[in-house]
């Protein structure tokens, strides 16, 4: 077992353990903080895959923006941070069955896959992944259309959020 595999296994354990804690911890803020650590584990996985850009963006976007937003929302809306009710509803057995089936199916499928035993080809020296990514995002042969569509969607969401928050009766907020 190489060092990279050991680090990967530890990261995977950390991520999955944090994920379990997100859904089981009764304190909502703790759940949000466990979510942060799960997202951080995913960032470490990206870093292990030599995808430094994705790793950093994962931290900036998910921890720096989305998790902070979650924590804000929880703190500003909930009076009591602890969840009192039962943690499972009556459909728990169906969910468990489904997840076992999905896991079994994936396990069965991936057993015959040759990609698991192959090692990744080394990145050639001088290969600048971030400029490759940047070129791919704006090149017509690659991802320019999805990139633009996502941008338009985000702008639409932004305008929608401003419209929802803006109260026309109060008119100008500068009072």
């Amino acid at each position, binding site marked *: 077992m190489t060092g990279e595999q050991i680090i990967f296994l530890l990261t995977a354990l950390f991520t999955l353990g944090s994920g379990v804690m997100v859904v089981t911890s009764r304190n909502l803020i703790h759940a949000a903080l466990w979510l942060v650590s799960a997202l951080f584990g995913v960032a470490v996985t990206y870093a292990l895959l030599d995808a430094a850009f994705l790793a950093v963006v994962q931290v900036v976007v998910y921890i720096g923006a989305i998790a902070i937003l979650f924590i804000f929302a929880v703190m500003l809306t909930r009076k009591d941070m602890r969840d009192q009710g039962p943690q499972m509803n009556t459909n728990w057995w169906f969910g468990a069955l489904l997840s076992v089936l999905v896991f079994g199916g994936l396990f069965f499928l991936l057993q015959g896959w040759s990609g698991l035993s192959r090692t990744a080809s080394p990145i050639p020296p001088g290969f*600048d*992944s971030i400029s490759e990514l940047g070129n791919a995002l704006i090149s017509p042969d690659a991802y320019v259309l999805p990139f633009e569509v996502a941008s338009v969607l985000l702008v639409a969401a932004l305008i929608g959020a401003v419209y929802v928050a803006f109260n026309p009766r109060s008119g100008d907020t500068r009072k």
Partner: protein
Amino acid sequence: MSFWNDPLKIAADWLMGIFTGWGMPEIAAQILIGFLGVFLLVALLMVLDIFLVWVERKVVARFQDRLGPNRVGPWGLIQPFADIIKLIIKEDTTPGGADKVVYNIAPMLSMMSVLILWAVVPLAPKIIGVDLNIGALYIIAAGAIGTLAIIMAGWSSNNKFALIGAFRQVAVMVSFEIPMLTMLLIPTIFAGSMGFNAIIEAQDIWYVFLAPLAAVIFLIAAIAELGRAPFDMAEGESEIVAGFNIEYSGMKFGMFYAGELLHAFTFGGFMGILFFGGYRFFGLEQVSAFLAVAVIVFKAFIGYWIIMWVKYTLMRIRIDHMLAFNWKFLTPLAFTLLMVTALMNALLAGTSPWIYTSGMFLSNVALGWIALEVARRYSRRERARVEGVVTTSRSTLVG
């Protein structure tokens, strides 16, 4: 390749010889040397941090026409050690109802978010933790962890003042991240890379001459990110006391305080790296790596001094004014500047450095002038409107 040009590699090779001579496998020796390198960097930073306390107190004293610490040791130099002893022997209190684990993790996370920044700081051409090709984004990611530490501290203290302070501070940090990130893209456009070493290597002309407006906006956003005056929303003695760290005592408070000072110093260093040529100073970095380190530390101190100068000169800004300033003035200006710079970069590509530099400089100055003019017109109109309202209400009162 001599010791004076690449001391780290020579030292690493020497240690490698010793460790493998002891019968240690090469991979273990490599990991151990890596850990030693990190330990050395962090230890030097923490020692520097101790003296930053002294520097900060001395400088603020001069700004306020006082002497500052001058009793313990020559020029009060031993004062920070006395402070540390005081902090260590203080009672370590935890408020009732606090969330103990989160409460204890927060100061560590706060200090960590500053220390990990130094992984990408190039101290000399060869002395750099890791030359990431996304160095500029890495700063923002580390800042995100700092934001998280503040909100954790504020929430876990079980104190309303702490929570309000944390909310205000986080609102500021999240908002000012946007102009800061945008301004990090301007050296990226000039250098064609986000890696700090590449940005420094490309600075034959300091970027502050190419983009003075970008340097100013970066400085403002950095001060807001640091949470220092005039943007010190977390603290407000008359309203929320010490903000998010009100419940912390002893060394836990010390971690926040030391983290803040080192953070300010680090951002002084980033000012130096991004806009003032980093470790380069008229070829001095070619002579010896140690001179390069001295140059960048000097530049970082100048940046730190400017941040202190601003802090101890200006008064605080109210939070709504500050957020309005960010969202209605700084962010649009930063985006416009980014677009103008990208456009000018495309137009002026291939021209001589003189034309390129003067074109960039003039476009920056012009944009800054237009922005100030727009702000002035707006504030005049606003003032006229408010004063008009006041006079009409007065006349109705009289009538």
